[in-house]
């Protein structure tokens, strides 16, 4: 896959969709192209986050360690971005990501990601927008969950 194709892929990622092609090309160029075979791990839960990944090809699972063992919390496919939270707020990886099929991805290092945001405020805005919408989605899910559990406990009380 050539640089230009990668740019096309990046454009389909919501976080990057509003950014000019030339800047995306720079982002793609300064990022590493990495490949994983099925079963290999992109990163482990608990590690320091040093990069975000854009999946270009293949599928991967997001897994969280719980006392009951590994639990799959999400599936990733083409055009997904993963790992950007850890590099934005300097926390350890909150989940493990493992390739299911052979995966090709663009690895955007923390330094580059942050530098891009500094240089191109529109990108920062896009990232904020995506994060905010994700937050509101999570909040909505959480309140639904809460309402559900209240209902359940209310029913239990009856």
């Amino acid at each position, binding site marked *: 896959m050539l*640089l230009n194709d990668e740019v096309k892929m990046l454009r389909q990622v919501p976080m990057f969709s509003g950014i000019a092609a030339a800047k995306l090309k720079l982002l793609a160029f300064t990022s590493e*192209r990495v490949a994983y075979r099925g079963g290999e791990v992109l990163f482990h839960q*608990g590690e320091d986050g040093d990069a975000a990944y854009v999946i270009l090809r293949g599928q991967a699972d997001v897994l969280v360690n719980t006392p009951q063992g590994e639990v799959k919390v999400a599936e990733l496919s083409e055009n997904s971005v993963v790992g950007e939270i850890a590099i934005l707020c300097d926390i350890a990886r909150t989940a493990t990501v493992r390739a299911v099929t052979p995966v090709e991805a663009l690895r955007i290092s923390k330094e580059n990601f942050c530098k891009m945001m500094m240089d191109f405020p529109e990108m920062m805005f896009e990232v904020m927008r995506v994060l905010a919408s994700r937050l509101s989605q999570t909040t909505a899910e959480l309140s639904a969950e809460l309402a559900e559990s209240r209902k359940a406990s209310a029913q239990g009380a009856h």
Partner: protein
Amino acid sequence: MLDMRLYSYIWKHTRMQQAWILVIVALSMIPYFMAFNLPKDIVNGPIQGAGFETPDATQVFMRLSVQLPGMSEELLLFPGIPLDRLGTLFALSAVFLALVIINGLFKFYINTYKGKLGERLLRRIRFSLVDHILRFPPSAFKHMKGAEIASMVKDEVEPLGGFTGDAFVSPAMLGGQALTALVFIFVQSVPLGLVTATLVGLQVFIIPRMRRRLLVLGRERQLTTRQLAGRVSEIVDGIGTIHANDTSNFERADVAARLGRIFTIRFDIYQWKFLVKFINNFLASLTPFLFYSLGGYLALKGHLDIGQLVAVIGAYKDLPGPLKELIDWDQNRQDVEVKYQQVISQFAIDGVMEPEIQAPLANPPALEKPLAAVSVGVVDEGGGTALERVNLSIDPGEMLAVLGAAGSGSDTMAEVFARQVWPSSGRVTAGQSNLLTLPEAVSGRSISYAGAESYFFSGSVLDNLLYGLKNTPPKQENPSPHPMAAWQREESRLSGNPDYDPEGDWIDYAALGLSGREALMQRVYEVLDCVDLTRDTQDLAIRSTVSAADHPELAAKIVAMRSLLQEELRKRDLSELVVPFEAEAFNTEATLIENLLFGRVRPPAQMADILADDGFFQRLLKSTGLFERFTLIGLDIARTVIGLFVDLPPDHPFFRQMTLMTADDLPTYQALVQRFDNPAAAITDGDRIMMILLAFEYIETRHRFGLVDEDLMAAVVDFRRTFHESIPEDLLHMIELYNPTRFMDSGTLLDNVLFGKVSEKYRDGADQIRAVLISLLHEIGTFGEVLNIGLNFDVGPSGRRLSPAQRQKIALARALVRQSDYYVFNRPLSTLDSRSQERVLIAVLDRWRKTGQRPGVLWVLVNPAVARHFDRIAVFSDGRLVEEGSFDTLLERNGIFKDMIGS
């Protein structure tokens, strides 16, 4: 100890030699004056014929006689040889030549001797200065800049050496000459003598006083230049901070202002210097003026005869020379005196350790027990309290964990025990004695310390690991050493330097409980394992460039390993991680140039040399049509890269990721691309070569511009075939061709085993391959040798070539290799992640349990949870020891410790 005045220092250390040189100088005067007189004898005698009035007249040559007191006749020592006119001429000329040679030899001896004297004193001063630095109290270094101190030791004391030889000889000689001339003038005419003496006195009085201001200015200049040196070194050390804060222009301004100050001072110096010179010259020429006018007047009036006047003027000719030199000497004296005092005042610091504390001890006694802080208080530089009346002891064999946030006093406590910080009140005792008054041979060897930031000396990893063992000066095995070595030794004694051999073995194996070097290396390996450094060391090794000549066996084994590795990778289903070098195939993970050459350029040769004008390589490229094709590829690359990077500032971090072009090259290539785009522009081969060099570094899988297709790959392999068939001898010296059965000197060990490229694609590829490689190295029994190569890795200045984590682990290992009664560790692993920290900590504690060594341990922890591995815990807060007890007791107490664990 250093004297406060240079003269007493010189006198103290060189008085015997000064007296000797004065005697020699006095002796040298005899042939000197004889040589003065001789030309007159030659001219008057044989040349003009005095005493040779008749053709067969002879003169007695070299008649020596002595008039003894109480005897009427002379005692004849040598009757002399009668010689005729010609004979006398040649004999006298021969004597003249002999005197010239004798004078020259005297001069040679005196100058060498003075030089030697000066160098010895310089060596002594420099050594004393460094010796002082080694004995400064730790707090002294908070005010010092390394570069300033270094420039004092290196440059500022330098003139003292040159002056030492002249300190007594010059005034004696020049003063004597000036005095002789003055006395002579007095003998001829008292009034003229008085005039001369007055003017000379005036000169001697005024000029040095005027020059004093020059000295003040000189001192100022010295201070400002020293500060400049300090600032420059700060800029170098703090370059990262400067870039990060965009303060480079601030630094520029600061440096410019300092240079301005130096300029102003210098300008002032010049103005004064030449004013002084003017007055000096004026006074010097005033004397002859008075001679002519006053002397002439006296002669005309008949008080003085013409002959006397001429003699006085003649004698005066000999006066200004020595006088001027004497004044210069005096200025030089004041100058070096000031320099000396300047330097000395910097080194006169309170609390310098007594030399006895650092004197080497062959078998130092063990430290008394226990080690205890008794009411220790520490006040830091800002006057804040870092520790307040702390009582804490470490018993032998006890493992004590110290907790507390940064600034709570926990770090300071560890530093106090390690003598890195001296208590402001209270004291640290070992048994009954004060730790600070004990010889360092006792305290330094009984207590090992590793902090979060330990210093690394330039050298290899191993040098740094063994640094803490170099406590015992090597024995002087050789009683009758080589004459050169004996001379060296004698000279160090004469300069007050110790004559220990730094190259000798400073390690006292017996004291470490080891049989010798080999046992020590075993301990080193064991400690490396313990602190999790084995892997790092192996990594350093396999990334090291090793020459086959130094390690012939290893090289052979490595070459043999190539096929083993491939097989092993195949077995583990990892073969796609490596793209091996194959003579008949294009390697997609290698650069285009690597593919063309099927080899690599041997340093120090450069690609540009190989591609040089009309060389074999260039001609071959042209004849195969690749010259043009690569030019176009380069042009494409240049366009793309310029398009990507043109808007970025040159110091943008993205440039670091770009291997094809640097920020500085960008404008050059921009201009080149414009030329290529302009149909009217004449494009030279030089321009094309610029583009080709760009294309050479291109790797399709990394750069992904889509410039290399199947057809080009085939053409490259074809080229390679032709190239190899006809490669000329001189190119073979510059290029190391890939050969599956040969070791590559220009490649790292990893390159050599892989004999191919790790695929860029697989992020974990390198790690997985390394794991396979290391297990293979184990199997074929080269593990030790490989580890040693890693240990020989040069750490760079201050260990900068290592990662922070590696530095911390090596510093910890350096302490562990030692055999101490106490170990003080001050957050030694803070840059590691918490899991690794705990792993290493447990390994370290386990190692002591296993070896039966039961040292006392004080470990300042980052993570309170790991405190459970310790016997006792001390918790610090606000400079006080607030809680103390075992893990379980503290947990029950509901105090700070419980909060720490809970959070």
